[in-house]
């Protein structure tokens, strides 16, 4: 990469975008060279998406300009951007599940092709870059990885000069990430610039040559990735030193420490996409964190449902403090002192269109009903749940855009802090948490992890189901691996290495 020869492809100067009084981008300057992989790093809400939406013509800047090939461009809508040679792969995709792959591609191509020409060029492009897609399949039938390939092929068909990729790896398996990176590197060799948005530091080090860091709507720094460690990147992104987690205190081993035991738990899959849980056995003591590792879709959701009481089974399958609760409902389990944090914070852990205090009320429902007078069983006092909500927000650093918002108005990280805080607020004895830091930025993830350790130090038991191996090793005392509905033997962390766990994950 000869710096003198590489010309500037896109240069944004003083870009500012406001939504009402909220400044999403504050005079941003960024320069992308031809054929360069340029990373855009920042926490959730730092303004990354707003910035690239302006590059793609979805938002118009309030101030500043964008130069493309040295000419100031005015992008009225994405069609203009595509005509200039700017393509974008969206984080949550912009596909139409009910349409076929080729129909999906057809309507985003501004060039008008016949069906045959189109299918031919889809196949050619997919061969050229090693992105396997089948044009006649419906998008609804595709896996997430395949869907992303469709989006990329769709962009490549327009022969882009700049490809914007918004958090492309958040939905991919490790193997798929390797493939994606190969494609991106080849693309950059062929002269296409890539703007790579991510908050995963090691990825940025691996794939990008330059990185621009955004924090609270402003550019903090632009640097070469060669000369910078992930630690420094993290600190620039968060704006303060990353505090290492305080290790948890271990309790003295007592005989009566057993919190929960699961015995020969069996659940037949609910539908063709589900996983059958086979003879799951484990125990957990108070003061311990049990990590359950595994690749998504291997029975984690089903295990969580069985433990929380969303699916019921035989009484003896789950025993909590000598009580058999395998067939007890979720409310009863809550009253015994078990709390649950399911993996989907939207729709599952919270009702997106209800306010935070209403969401608090929903899980505190049991306490309201059973500890109150007859009158209070029927009527609720919103003051109590508002108060409880406020406490949760305060204790867990939940940042709300304004007072008492709807759940869906919180950013991912803040909503997750709220959901976990709500579970802890009930003063549980056992907490079962699934994917607590999925899609959450470093700052929030760190807070959440520390909370989990603190809770274990206080003598609570925690079951942590996570895809993130680093997280599993950082937090757990003992580790099991779930694979295709089977749980491996639980082993002490000291007797396990990430490689061993990785191997167990692969067993199908």
């Amino acid at each position, binding site marked *: 990469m000869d710096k003198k020869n590489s010309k500037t492809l896109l240069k944004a100067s003083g870009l500012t975008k406001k939504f009402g009084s909220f400044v999403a981008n504050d005079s941003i300057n960024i320069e992308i060279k031809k054929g360069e992989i340029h990373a855009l790093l920042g926490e959730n809400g730092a303004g990354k998406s707003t910035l690239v939406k302006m590059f793609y013509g979805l938002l118009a800047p309030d101030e500043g300009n964008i130069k493309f090939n040295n000419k100031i461009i005015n992008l009225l809508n994405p069609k203009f951007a595509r005509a200039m040679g700017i393509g974008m792969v969206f984080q949550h995709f*912009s*596909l*139409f599940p009910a*349409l076929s792959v080729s129909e999906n591609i057809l309507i985003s191509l501004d060039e008008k092709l016949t069906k045959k020409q189109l299918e031919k060029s889809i196949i050619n492009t997919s061969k050229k870059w090693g992105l396997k897609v089948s044009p006649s399949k419906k998008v609804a039938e595709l896996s997430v990885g395949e869907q992303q390939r469709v989006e990329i092929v769709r962009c490549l068909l327009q022969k882009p000069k700049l490809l914007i990729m918004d958090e492309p790896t958040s939905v991919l398996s490790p193997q798929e990430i390797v493939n994606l990176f190969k494609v991106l590197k080849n693309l950059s060799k062929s002269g296409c610039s890539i703007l790579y948005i991510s908050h995963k530091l090691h990825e940025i080090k691996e794939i990008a040559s330059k990185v621009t860091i955004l924090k609270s709507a402003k550019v903090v720094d632009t640097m070469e990735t060669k000369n910078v460690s992930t630690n420094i990147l993290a600190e620039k992104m968060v704006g303060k030193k990353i505090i290492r987690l305080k290790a948890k205190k271990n309790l003295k081993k007592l005989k009566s420490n057993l919190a929960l035991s699961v015995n020969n738990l069996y659940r037949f899959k609910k539908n063709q996409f589900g996983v059958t849980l086979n003879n799951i056995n484990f125990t957990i003591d108070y003061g311990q964190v049990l990590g359950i590792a595994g690749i998504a879709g291997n029975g984690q959701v089903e295990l969580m449902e069985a433990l929380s009481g969303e699916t019921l089974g035989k009484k003896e399958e789950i025993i909590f403090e000598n009580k058999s609760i395998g067939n007890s409902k979720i409310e009863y389990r809550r009253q015994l002192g078990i709390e649950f944090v399911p993996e989907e914070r939207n729709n599952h852990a919270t009702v997106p269109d209800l306010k935070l205090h209403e969401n608090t009320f929903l899980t505190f429902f049991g306490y309201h009903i059973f500890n109150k007078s007859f009158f209070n069983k029927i009527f609720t006092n919103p003051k109590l749940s508002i108060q409880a909500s406020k406490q949760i927000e305060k204790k867990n650093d939940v940042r709300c855009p304004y007072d008492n918002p709807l759940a869906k108005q919180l950013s991912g990280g803040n909503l997750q802090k709220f959901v976990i805080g709500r579970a802890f607020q009930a003063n549980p004895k056992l907490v079962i948490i699934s994917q607590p830091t999925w899609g959450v930025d470093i700052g929030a993830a760190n807070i959440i992890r520390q909370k989990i350790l603190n809770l274990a130090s206080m003598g609570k038991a925690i079951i942590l189901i996570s895809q993130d191996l680093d997280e599993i090793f950082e937090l757990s005392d003992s580790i099991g691996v779930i694979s295709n509905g089977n749980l491996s033997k639980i082993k002490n962390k000291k007797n396990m290495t990430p490689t061993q766990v990785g191997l167990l994950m692969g067993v199908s």
Partner: protein
Amino acid sequence: MESLLITILVTSVPILLAGTGELIAEKSGVLNLGVEGMMLTGAVAALGSVLIFGNPLAGIFFGALAGILISLIFSFFTIFLMTNQVATGLGLTIFATGLTGLIGEPFVGKTISSLPKIEIIFLSDIPFLGSIFFKHDILFYLSILLIIAVHFFLIKSRYGIIIRAVGDNHDSAHSIGYPVKIIRLLCVGFGGMCAGMGGAYIPLVLTPHWSEGMTAGKGWIALALVVFASWLPFRLLLGALIFGGITILQFVGQARGWPFPSQFLNMLPYLVTIIALSIISIKTRSGNTLVPSSLGKPFLENN
């Protein structure tokens, strides 16, 4: 027998037309429950314009125009003010029922001339079939051509795919640069036009004088028809004939004194729709989605 079949065909035309329009609107993701109201508006506009201009063809034009205009009210509220589509659609029907009653008041007791029958040369000479299918008015032929055109438009044409895309995922459509609101406005307008023509057909061919609420629930049947057809044009055509047949059976049954109540037949279209819905639901669970995914959901540009 021959005349019975002809009656069934002609009775099916209003619901076929209205259903065709609603199908396009729903494919784009908008559920307009105002079909009954739009049909009434089309009916009263057609009747009035024939009384004024003396030409039944003017009835088709003004019926369609009135349908478009009243659908704009619905579009304005649901697409641009993002009100609830169900409530707004119901409101539109209630509003139109009152409005057409008022407008139609002076027309009571007057009779208009019907649309002329057009015999298609050669084809109308085919024994039996000729007189059933090829001796009809222009709107009849138009309704058949329209549903065939809609079928190919939706499946083959670029614009058809765009409409389906908007109905499937409006956020995606927006993010690749399609004007979701404008597309929906046009689709709902098309729905209004078709419902207006469907309504116009009633005074222009079936009963040539005004009576309040003369569509008599055909708009609701058209709505059920779209669901019954699982948003597929050719099933819509088939369904229109079945529903039309059921309507006629009521009269035949009453005339011949069949031993079951007419209310039962009245209920049949809805019953059939519920059965169709159950079948769709089973199909959907096996991963085959027929319902437009963003049907009934307001589109908010998330800036």
